[in-house]
């Protein structure tokens, strides 16, 4: 096939990018080389629109062992233990083929983690769908949930937390972000940097097929009406093979034969070999005839661009081939020496004894395009004034029930029940709490993780929204008694070529940077997903933040269910009555304008750290952060979980009841304490200048408000639990 500008454009490259390729090579590329360039230079692999801005993220800290740039980030959790974790998107494939798209997303992120030598110990996910009324939503939700479960359950890794939302902006572009945590000994972490000359390059895992060719390019483009035709670009997952690959890799890693290891994810053999060579400043020579293939007559182009799953590339020490092969034979996996490291600093490919590609690694990586895209700043919207007549007919209990049954607040039990949450025998907090918690096997320690996003806030004011998501992650970890350590981010946005979408990206990243810097909650890994867009319509900006924290003694973990009648309930943090962009404003008043709640980083940090002090002093019986739906929604969820009620008295604030109960001001928590501890608790709160309200006392089974209105907890529980089950069974 003759390569020209049009062929390059068909591969998703821009005309000037093609010109640059020809200049760098000092000739036109052949078709295999063009395929390699298109795979390496697309948005998904090159981060060409985002690189400039991602540099702003704080990535260092005392506990950070490895920041962005490796397969996943690594943090120190003491005693020579480390946690490897990352979140990644699989949005485009999941819309085209929800089961396989979601399944391979989960498979891919687990591979990133065990590539570094860590055994995966927990999975999380953040999934976002279009309006429940949209004709595709139900099937997409079902397919994605089956896919996530199908892969994670088979791997034997518990799914411990997640987030699901519905918004019409995802009608044509759903989001599927998968996160994995792995456990590794600090001195047994594996990296992707190749080193040494003439070292064997080994291919292990599944055979290479024709599936997923151009997957990364597909994920770097907007959708149009012909999207269904892209089904063949979605990979097909085989969790059984991945389980074998996991065990085989960990067995090989127990020895000392691996120099570098890299999984074949997006852009398959191309990106994995180039990444290893680039990091080691070496060349790699591969004989493509040696690559195990699933189908006959695969061309070099197809072999290099296949995104078949469950494959790894390893650079071994010389002479260790036999020993390594034995392990992979035992697990019935392919093992092939396909090439070697060289000093050419080039990627050189051979097929049928002919050279089919010869490219300096540098031209593919360092010379890849980087764009400073135009972007537009979002002004802070003007505040709305709530009119008395709009709310005077509203009854708090009725509104509460509506909110508890809102698709974005309601119980997601229908989803979690399809995930194995308890395999590995260390899950001590399952989905449905503020964060999932797993014990570090055989120790007193536990690791907490949560995943959060607030697309509505980010859409209204990206800078504030970006900050808010990081704070929410911080709060969720603290609510279970964990000390927040670091985050991973999955940045889901529309087209970077659109100034508004690009502006949302730039300002969300700015917000994330500010908050993570201030809270000492650095970003150690992540991924960017642009072009979540159908024709001209982009999604609401949806950065998802995965936070990880440590609980030193798992017996001190906190849960959100109310524990004991007569205990006192307090609200930590000041309620200003911010209603704009709240669930109440958007769904009850149908008011979609106005700014999101302000984020005060000092208060966030101070309130959170003070709560940790209370927890360290064993003064907290239950805790829950206040988010969507405000104080009353948070309290109702604690009632439902604990099967207990509460007598609430609104404190004598200037704001009205509606504002007090439904406002979404930040930096707040609900806590339950024993009456006899009130003095100790209030002393600590006062001493740290933390505002708090006395909200009420726990009772057996009813929620009372100001002694006037009441509702049974069973009634609230039904409102909370029925929506999703009913929706899915229709």
């Amino acid at each position: 096939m003759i390569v020209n500008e049009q062929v390059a454009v068909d591969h998703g490259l821009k005309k000037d990018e093609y010109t640059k390729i020809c200049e760098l090579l000092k000739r036109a590329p052949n078709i295999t080389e063009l395929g390699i360039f298109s795979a390496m230079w697309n948005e998904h692999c090159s981060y060409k629109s985002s690189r400039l801005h991602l540099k702003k993220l704080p990535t260092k800290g005392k506990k950070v062992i490895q920041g962005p740039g490796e397969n996943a980030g690594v943090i120190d959790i003491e005693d020579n233990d480390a946690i490897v974790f990352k979140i990644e998107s699989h949005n485009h494939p999941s819309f085209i083929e929800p089961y396989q798209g979601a399944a391979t997303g989960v498979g891919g992120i687990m591979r990133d983690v065990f590539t570094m030598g860590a055994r995966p110990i927990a999975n999380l996910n953040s999934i976002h769908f279009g309006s429940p009324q949209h004709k595709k939503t139900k099937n997409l939700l079902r397919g994605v949930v089956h896919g996530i479960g199908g892969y994670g359950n088979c791997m034997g890794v518990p799914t411990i937390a997640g987030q699901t939302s519905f918004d019409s902006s995802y009608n044509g572009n759903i989001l599927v972000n998968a996160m994995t945590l792995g456990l590794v000994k600090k001195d047994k972490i594996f990296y992707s940097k190749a080193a040494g000359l003439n070292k064997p390059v080994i291919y292990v895992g599944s055979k290479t097929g024709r599936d997923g060719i151009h997957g990364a390019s597909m994920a770097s483009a907007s959708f149009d009406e012909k999207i269904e035709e892209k089904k063949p670009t979605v990979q097909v997952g085989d969790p059984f093979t991945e389980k074998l690959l996991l065990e085989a890799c960990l067995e090989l890693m127990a020895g000392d034969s691996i120099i570098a290891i890299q999984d074949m994810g997006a852009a398959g053999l191309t990106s994995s070999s180039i990444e290893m060579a680039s990091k080691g400043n070496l060349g790699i020579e591969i004989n493509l005839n040696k690559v195990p293939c699933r189908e006959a007559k695969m061309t070099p182009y197809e072999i290099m661009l296949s995104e078949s799953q469950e494959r790894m590339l390893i650079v071994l020490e010389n002479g260790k081939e036999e020993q390594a092969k034995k392990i992979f034979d035992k697990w019935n996996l392919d093992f092939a020496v396909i090439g070697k490291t060289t000093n050419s600093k080039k990627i050189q490919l051979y097929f049928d004894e002919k050279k089919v590609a010869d490219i300096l690694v540098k031209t593919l990586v360092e010379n890849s395009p980087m764009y400073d895209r135009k972007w537009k700043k979002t002004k802070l919207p003007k505040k709305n004034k709530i009119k008395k007549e709009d709310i005077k007919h509203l009854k708090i209990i009725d509104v509460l029930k509506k909110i508890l049954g809102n698709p974005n607040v309601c119980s997601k039990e229908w989803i979690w029940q399809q995930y194995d949450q308890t395999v590995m025998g260390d899950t001590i907090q399952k989905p449905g709490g503020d964060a999932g918690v797993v014990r570090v096997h055989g120790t007193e320690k536990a690791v907490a993780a949560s995943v959060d996003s607030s697309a509505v806030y980010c859409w209204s004011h990206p800078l504030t929204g970006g900050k808010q998501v990081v704070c929410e992650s911080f709060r969720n970890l603290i609510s279970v008694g964990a000390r927040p350590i670091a985050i991973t981010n999955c940045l889901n946005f529309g087209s970077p070529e659109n100034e508004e979408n690009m502006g949302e990206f730039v300002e969300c990243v700015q917000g994330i940077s500010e908050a993570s810097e201030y809270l000492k909650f650095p970003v150690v890994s992540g991924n960017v997903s642009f072009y979540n867009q159908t024709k001209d319509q982009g999604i609401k900006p949806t950065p998802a933040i995965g936070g990880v924290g440590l609980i030193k003694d798992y017996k001190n973990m906190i849960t959100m269910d109310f524990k004991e009648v007569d205990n006192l309930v307090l609200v930590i943090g000041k309620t200003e009555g911010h209603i704009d962009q709240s669930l109440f404003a958007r769904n009850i008043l149908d008011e979609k304008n106005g700014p999101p709640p302000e984020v005060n980083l000092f208060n966030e940090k101070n309130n959170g750290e003070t709560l940790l002090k209370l927890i360290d002093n064993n003064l907290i019986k239950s805790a829950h952060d206040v988010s969507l739906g405000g104080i009353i929604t948070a309290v109702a969820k604690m009632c439902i979980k604990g099967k207990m009620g509460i007598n609430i008295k609104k404190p004598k604030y200037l704001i009205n009841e509606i504002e007090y109960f439904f406002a979404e001001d930040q930096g707040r928590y609900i806590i339950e304490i024993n009456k006899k501890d009130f003095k100790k608790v209030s002393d600590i709160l006062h001493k740290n200048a933390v505002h708090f309200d006395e909200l009420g006392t726990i009772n057996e089974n009813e929620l009372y408000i100001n002694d006037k209105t009441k509702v049974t907890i069973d009634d609230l529980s039904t409102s909370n639990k029925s929506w999703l089950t009913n929706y899915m069974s229709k």
Partner: protein
Amino acid sequence: MKSSVITFPGSNCDRDMDVALKKFGFKNKMVWHADAELPKSDLVVLPGGFSYGDYLRCGSMASKSKIMHSVINFANSGGMVMGICNGFQILVETGLVPGVLLRNKYLEFICKNVFVKINDKKNRYFKNFDNEVLEFHIAHNEGNYFCTNNQLKEIEDNNQIAINYCDENGKIEDQFNPNGSIKNIAGIFNKEKNVLGMMPHPERMIDKSLSGEDGSLFFKNLINNLK
């Protein structure tokens, strides 16, 4: 007491079972599926997971593993063999226990706590148990027990039903059946009651920080019965 846990390709509850057995006093050995001989054991456990990816039919390929010849001989000579979840599916495929396990009635994987009622205590698994009802944990996609009417009659006549899904008071009704199993069956024995297959995972409920502690009761009782 000596126990052996078999690891098949795709087993993923083998470690959890090893941890549980050791916690309650068993000297446990992990045994690879391709081995020919079982170590000397008082109890053999086929653990949960997705042996061979559940491809073809859950448990079918594992049931033909090399080690299974020894396991079947061991069972036929009266040895105690327990299959949990995928292990139950494997037992069904070997024919050591009657019936089949179909996909869950609502075609979805289910992971949650359930209650089960002990149906028969005249066996070495449940003998001397104080409780009638246990809170156990299930996590499976194919736990919908099914058999022919003739088989069912035989199972009932021989008192081969081990546990049934029920509510916390031991009431066995359709609404407490999580997967559509015939007669709410959660676990069954072979005729001689030395082989037990059940869907629930007692190894996931062995300390109070986990989903519950009734698994501890099960293992404590089991090792005492075997002594």
